[in-house]
């Protein structure tokens, strides 16, 4: 690695090449029978299943309907994580006492994988919408909190001094100094949260009974429909990428507006 960025065209070409290589390898392995069909469907089977599921229902709904159901839970979970995590992180970044109280608990909890919450989520919040939201929340919350906290904690000391010298109170300090200073870090945190939340989705939907991509995959697994499972995985991947691209665009726009490097 020499770390030099390739021109856009060349790097896109390379990306395409590696994708083709991957698909080629997959085709060879499956069509030749090196890997038995029941373990891995061929790319063509997956593609045709994918397009089929766009219109014909499986496990009670079409793929877009499953995705919409998943996305709704996901959006609630991530928004809740941001709504709690960002303010709490900022407050912890300013009030040492709160930091000292919350940090030990938080440091213990954040290493528990979201999926480990499945039993309790089901017990506490049921398998309707509450349980899955809690699991997505468990995945999305830590990065929201940590990044808001770091952003607030590592504001240029000079700016805090300037604000103090101007007689700024705690509320204004948090809203007008810590928050704007932490925005880049918060956005970065939201990106990670969005990713982890989306990753927690299938775990969350293991316990949900009615709809969702995860639900669809679990149902397909029951009837050994590998192509359907793979379709679910691909749909999750694509939506995850779209979410990330959109958030990255938002981040870039914000940085340019601030006069930071693009």
């Amino acid at each position, binding site marked *: 690695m020499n770390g030099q960025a390739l021109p856009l065209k060349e790097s896109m070409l390379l990306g395409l090449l590696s994708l083709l290589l991957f698909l080629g390898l997959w085709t060879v392995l499956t069509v030749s029978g090196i890997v038995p069909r029941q373990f891995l469907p061929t790319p063509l089977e997956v593609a045709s299943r994918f397009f089929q599921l766009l219109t014909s229902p499986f496990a009670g709904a079409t793929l877009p309907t499953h995705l919409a159901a998943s996305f709704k839970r996901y959006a609630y979970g991530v928004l809740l994580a941001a709504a709690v995590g960002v303010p709490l992180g900022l407050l912890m970044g300013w009030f040492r006492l709160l930091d000292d109280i919350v940090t030990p608990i938080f440091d213990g909890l954040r290493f528990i994988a979201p999926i480990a919450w499945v039993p309790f989520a089901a017990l506490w919040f049921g398998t309707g919408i509450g349980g899955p939201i809690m699991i997505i929340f468990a995945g999305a919350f830590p990065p929201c909190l940590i990044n808001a906290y770091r952003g607030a904690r590592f504001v*240029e000391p*000079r*700016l805090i*001094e*300037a*604000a*103090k*010298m*101007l*007689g*700024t*109170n705690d509320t*204004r300090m948090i809203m*007008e*100094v810590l928050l*704007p*200073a932490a*925005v880049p870090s918060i956005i970065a945190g939201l990106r990670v949260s969005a990713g982890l939340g989306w990753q927690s989705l299938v775990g969350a939907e293991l316990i949900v009974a009615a709809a969702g991509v995860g639900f669809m995959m679990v149902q397909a697994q029951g009837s050994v429909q590998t192509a359907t499972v793979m379709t679910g995985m691909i749909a999750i991947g694509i939506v995850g990428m779209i979410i990330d691209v959109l958030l990255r665009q938002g981040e870039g726009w914000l940085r340019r507006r*601030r*006069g930071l490097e693009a």
Partner: protein
Amino acid sequence: MGSISFSHVDKIFGPQGSGVKALDNINLDIADREFVAIVGPSGCGKTTCLRMVAGFEAASAGEVKVNGKTVTAPGPDRAVVFQQFALFPWKTVRENIDLGLRNKNLPLAERDGLISSALKLMSLESHADAFPHQLSGGMQQRVAIARAYVLDPEVLLMDEPFGALDAQTRVVMQEELVRLARRNPRTVLFITHAVEEAVYLADRVAIMTRRPGRIKEVLDIRSIREAEGWDRHPKIEDVMDLESFVHLRTHIWKTLREEKDFQHV
């Protein structure tokens, strides 16, 4: 009211005992409405002195008092113009200046009036809605000065406020500061590298030594300025040509020079 006093002030950075002594037994009394400039070689502790008055740094020994009260925390009675501006990058010029006024809970109309006159004073009217990163270093410095001025503080603490300005703007600002200081005198602690600037602006000039920083000499400029009628000359270059000015400047130069030479021995 805005007197400042340093009595037997030491400042040690780092762990007690093994730290670096930045200031050693600083004694200086600044009267209400007096303009005192500190000059000294880089790293001698000028900024540290100012930060202690501002309430950003505690003395390791001795006491720093403002109006007879030991400084414990920063506050708007002691406005600071920072060496590196410290403007809020996400606030426009106007919003940067406004924050201190809002903190004082002044009504909107009054704030607008104060901001307008501060912008005018600093020739920033056409940049009121710009963000700091859209301004040159000199303009940013002027915003920082406006932000401090507009608070009408008892004590003004200025850390090389004209350092980032070009020669022409610098002269304009110096003359303006002198006019302001004479018209509406307030307590100013002013730090600079520029000897001429110190002599031109200040009532007294304190000369500091290299590390550990001590006050080597305090010169009374005011009595000479008044006796020689410097203020009759509106232009800085005319004052700088006066024999009394040249004499003071040369004296300070030589004192600082001894510091440099001492270093090399």
